[in-house]
């Protein structure tokens, strides 16, 4: 066993090298890869059943914790029946999984299919509503208006919050679990923040965008995100225009100039100054407009190449110039993506050593995205993040190299890159088992799944995730939430998690009723030892340390405690079982996946 462990990375590294130099590789329909001239995949990179260090039971738990948000009570048996590999293959083809029940559940939400325009019209931002009220009353806002405005703001918050709630609900009940995992992954990779400007109105659309491409083509995903109102707003690209003095692709049309002059005359007349004076004031008041590098920088640092991707500050400027004119139809007021030649920097550019000739328009930005998406550093960066999500905080370099190779070979096929990772020997290694600390989102969702909770149509499940430290769409910085155990574990976090487990076992979490937990009926009347074993089996994946078992066994005899006193019929009480469940959910084992 140890010998094999030592030798394996070398073999894999060698293989990765062959692939990067272009060995002819073909993907078969099952996703297995055969390489001409090299050993068959089943004996090298791809793990055969015999290669896997994890026991059969562990593998079942492992795939349910990594390709899904943890097992529901019936899942373990279902995966065992179908076989681990067949189940994974099925998850890798979500379009073929019947998900009608989830679609039906989603119809409980009113606004999920709303466009941003419709959301803005029906739930205007507070300042817009306030301005409208002020116009109506021609001065200060009346008390009645204030009350109405507050009510309106509440309704808006509720409607806009539906999306975050639906994200939790989907993760809990969707049969397409891997797709949901990938939606979570990409949403975090392309992080946007709900609190910036109008982003909250664009999130419904953003979720549809991410979802459409989550298992698809990376370049398509990158392009769709680049043009999404959420990202254009969050990273400011909508207001990035050619610096003054630079030639633009097209001059302002004469009619727009005329309109602008007319507006200036009107404003000047209102204030009793000359149009020249007014123009001067407006110039002073206008923010210095020009190039905004924000999106260009994060596009390379966080979305594609990675921080060590070898780009320079000059590359950031040149990419920003190439993306000038990628904006929103109505600017700060929203609207969909539009390319404005009048603000597009028409000069020549050099990006990562590649020359872009002068005079190109929208297609120039597309070519930049092509360049970035196909860059080997991007393959490496995305492969590293995926391996970190699926395998461990410090994924084995050989595995990352193979995943990056798949990414390059398939021109950024996300599904195939994930397949390379989750079918690897490293994925099924003993080291990888329970190596990941659950994020708050994963903790809440896996708990709800373990307890067989139905989808929660209220905002409360999403609030639980937020309270545990991971508000959905609530990460301000563009880097997204961390994906390492160190980042999620600290004094406050563990306390909140333990309390969450207690709350669940006390029936105080929406949708969770201990009495509706499938194991409840079979366990409630058993003795303590049998209850503990049952809870360990269903909630902690069957195997746990002797110490944990001892602690679950110890403590007050539920037959004798006051609150959980003997039930009327003299049988062991449900309160005792509730306590075991609460302890198990608060145990260190349940914090891992």
């Amino acid at each position, binding site marked *: 066993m140890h010998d094999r462990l030592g030798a394996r990375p070398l073999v894999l590294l060698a293989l990765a090298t062959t692939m990067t130099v272009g060995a002819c590789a073909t993907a078969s329909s099952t996703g297995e890869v055969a390489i001409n001239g090299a050993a068959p995949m089943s004996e090298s990179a791809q793990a055969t059943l015999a290669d896997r260090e994890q026991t059969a039971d562990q593998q079942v738990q492992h795939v349910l914790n990594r390709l899904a948000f943890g097992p529901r009570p019936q899942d373990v048996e279902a995966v065992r029946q179908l076989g681990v590999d067949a189940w994974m293959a099925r998850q890798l083809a979500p379009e073929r999984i019947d998900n009608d029940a989830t679609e039906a559940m989603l119809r409980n939400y009113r606004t999920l299919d709303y466009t941003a325009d419709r959301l803005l019209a029906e739930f205007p931002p507070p300042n817009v509503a306030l301005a409208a009220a002020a116009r109506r009353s021609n001065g200060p806002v009346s008390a009645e208006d204030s009350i109405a405005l507050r009510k309106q703001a509440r309704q808006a918050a509720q409607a806009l919050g539906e999306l975050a709630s639906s994200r939790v609900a989907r993760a809990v009940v969707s049969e397409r679990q891997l797709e949901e995992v990938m939606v979570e992954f990409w949403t975090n990779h392309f992080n946007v923040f709900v609190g910036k400007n109008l982003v909250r109105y664009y999130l419904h659309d953003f979720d549809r965008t991410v979802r459409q491409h989550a298992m698809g083509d990376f370049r398509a995903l990158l392009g769709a995100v680049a043009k999404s109102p959420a990202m254009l707003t969050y990273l400011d690209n909508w207001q990035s225009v050619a610096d003054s003095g630079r030639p633009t692709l097209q001059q302002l049309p004469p009619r727009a100039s005329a309109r602008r002059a007319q507006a200036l005359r009107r404003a000047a007349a209102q204030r009793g100054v000359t149009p020249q004076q007014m123009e001067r004031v407006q110039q002073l008041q*206008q*923010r210095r407009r020009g190039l905004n590098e924000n999106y260009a920088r994060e596009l390379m*640092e966080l979305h594609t190449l990675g921080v060590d991707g070898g780009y320079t500050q000059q590359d950031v400027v040149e990419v920003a110039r190439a993306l000038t004119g990628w904006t929103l139809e109505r600017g700060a007021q929203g609207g969909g993506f539009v390319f404005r030649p009048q603000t597009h920097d028409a000069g020549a550019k050099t990006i990562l050593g590649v020359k872009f000739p002068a005079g190109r328009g929208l297609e120039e930005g597309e070519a930049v995205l092509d360049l970035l998406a196909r860059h080997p550093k991007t393959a490496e960066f995305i492969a590293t993040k995926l391996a970190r999500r699926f395998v461990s905080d410090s994924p084995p370099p050989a595995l990352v190299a193979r995943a990056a190779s798949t990414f390059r070979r398939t021109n950024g096929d996300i599904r195939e890159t994930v397949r390379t990772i989750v079918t690897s020997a490293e994925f099924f290694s003993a080291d990888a088992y329970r190596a990941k600390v659950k994020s708050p989102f994963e903790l809440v969702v896996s708990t709800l799944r373990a307890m067989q909770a139905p989808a929660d149509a209220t905002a409360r499940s999403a609030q639980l995730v937020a309270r545990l430290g991971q508000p959905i769409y609530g990460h301000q910085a563009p880097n997204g939430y961390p994906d390492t155990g160190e980042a999620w574990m*600290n*004094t406050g976090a563990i*306390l909140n998690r333990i309390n969450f487990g207690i709350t669940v076992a006390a029936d105080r979490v929406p949708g969770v009723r201990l009495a509706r937990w499938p194991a409840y009926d079979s366990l409630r009347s058993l003795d303590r030892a049998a209850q503990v074993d049952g809870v360990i089996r269903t909630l902690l994946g069957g195997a746990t340390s002797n110490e*944990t078992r001892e602690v679950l066994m110890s*403590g007050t005899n539920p037959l004798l405690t006051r609150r959980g006193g003997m039930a009327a019929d003299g049988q062991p009480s449900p309160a005792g079982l509730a306590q075991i469940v*609460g302890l198990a959910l608060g145990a260190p084992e349940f914090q891992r996946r």
Partner: protein
Amino acid sequence: MHRRVFLKGGALSLLTLGLSPSFLRRTALAMDLPRAARGKTLIVLFQRGAADALNVLVPFGDRDYYAARPQLAIGSPARPNGALGAIDLDGFLGLHPSLTGFKTLWDRGLLAPIQAVGSPSATRSHFDAQDYMETGTPDRKGTPDGWLNRYLAVKGTCESCAPGTDGIAGSPFRAVAMAAQTPRILEGASPVVAMNAIEEFSIRTNSGDAQQRLEALYRTGRSDVVHGSGRDMFEALKVLKAANPLQYRPANGAQYPRSPFGQRLQQIAQLIKAGVGLEVAFADVGGWDTHVNQGAAQGQLANRLRDFSDSVTSLVADLGDRMDDVLILTCSEFGRTVRQNGTGGTDHGHAGAMFVIGGSVHGRKVHGTWPGLAREQLYEGRDLALTTDFRAVFAEVTARHLGLTDTSAVFPGYRGGNGGSGGDGWLGVLR
């Protein structure tokens, strides 16, 4: 006195259980040290929404102020017919009449106001400006951590240091945000506790031995990050229990407002007095985005300011002599337009005002310089111009109060730290 005995006893009994209550031990020891050697604490208070600096620190000596705000301006201190005017500080600038508590602090030499201070960034977006102020990196998006957390990380947890010389760096309560979630300013690698209230920091079960059994789950088994955090947490619970926060009585007759902000400040005082090793505390308060019906000497902003002043003043009173080791820093993302707008309010502006409060400030002086309010003196023709970069204040506080010798890792790219009037290169807010 009682508390000290309890803490020592608590630490001892933990030792007998075979735990390693290193921070507890140091906590108990630190209580015996002379006051001069005690750890320093910094409390940062954020006024979210952009407080109207011109009506907080009122330039009653500037004629342009009154021209720009016919309805909103605060009258000069010598008002006829008894109307509420500004509280004179230096003959030119004064405090809003709601800030009577701050005037007391000024008279005692505990208050250092800073004028025309803020972010050099041109942004008028709340989001961006708060982000810049909390990361300490204006115009740089994507800074992953907040500046307070970078301070904590740079200073490190000095396990081998003598107690008192380096605070109680291993304490789980070294950095506390009185907030539901960790705010941007405290995000980062160094551990932080975020809580709405101290009583939230407890195990929510009243069923007999559940807490002991939970603790046992984390005591046994592996020594990984999950178990380690769990063990630290149960130790922290014991510290808080010893501090007995639910029985708290403020000292020196301090009466905190019942507002959420006042209550949060009271809890910060509790943590400081409990000796849990609090080095950095944070709280924020909203409601400053006064676009409509702002009011003048009375009204919306006046009410906000009264709560703000009363809360901070109570905290200072409650902490008493401890204010020698405690510094309070107030900030807001930017100021507001010089001119009042059409709906009785003000819009997003540029430079603002800050207050530094504590026993070590250079008091009875308004710091910074006044840029003037004539049109050509305004920033972009409309806002109070900036004369002091907020990083000058943050860096001085980090260096001279918290004792970090090199602040360059906390404020990357900032080189203005040595341009002030303090002789030694600082702004001179601290003595």
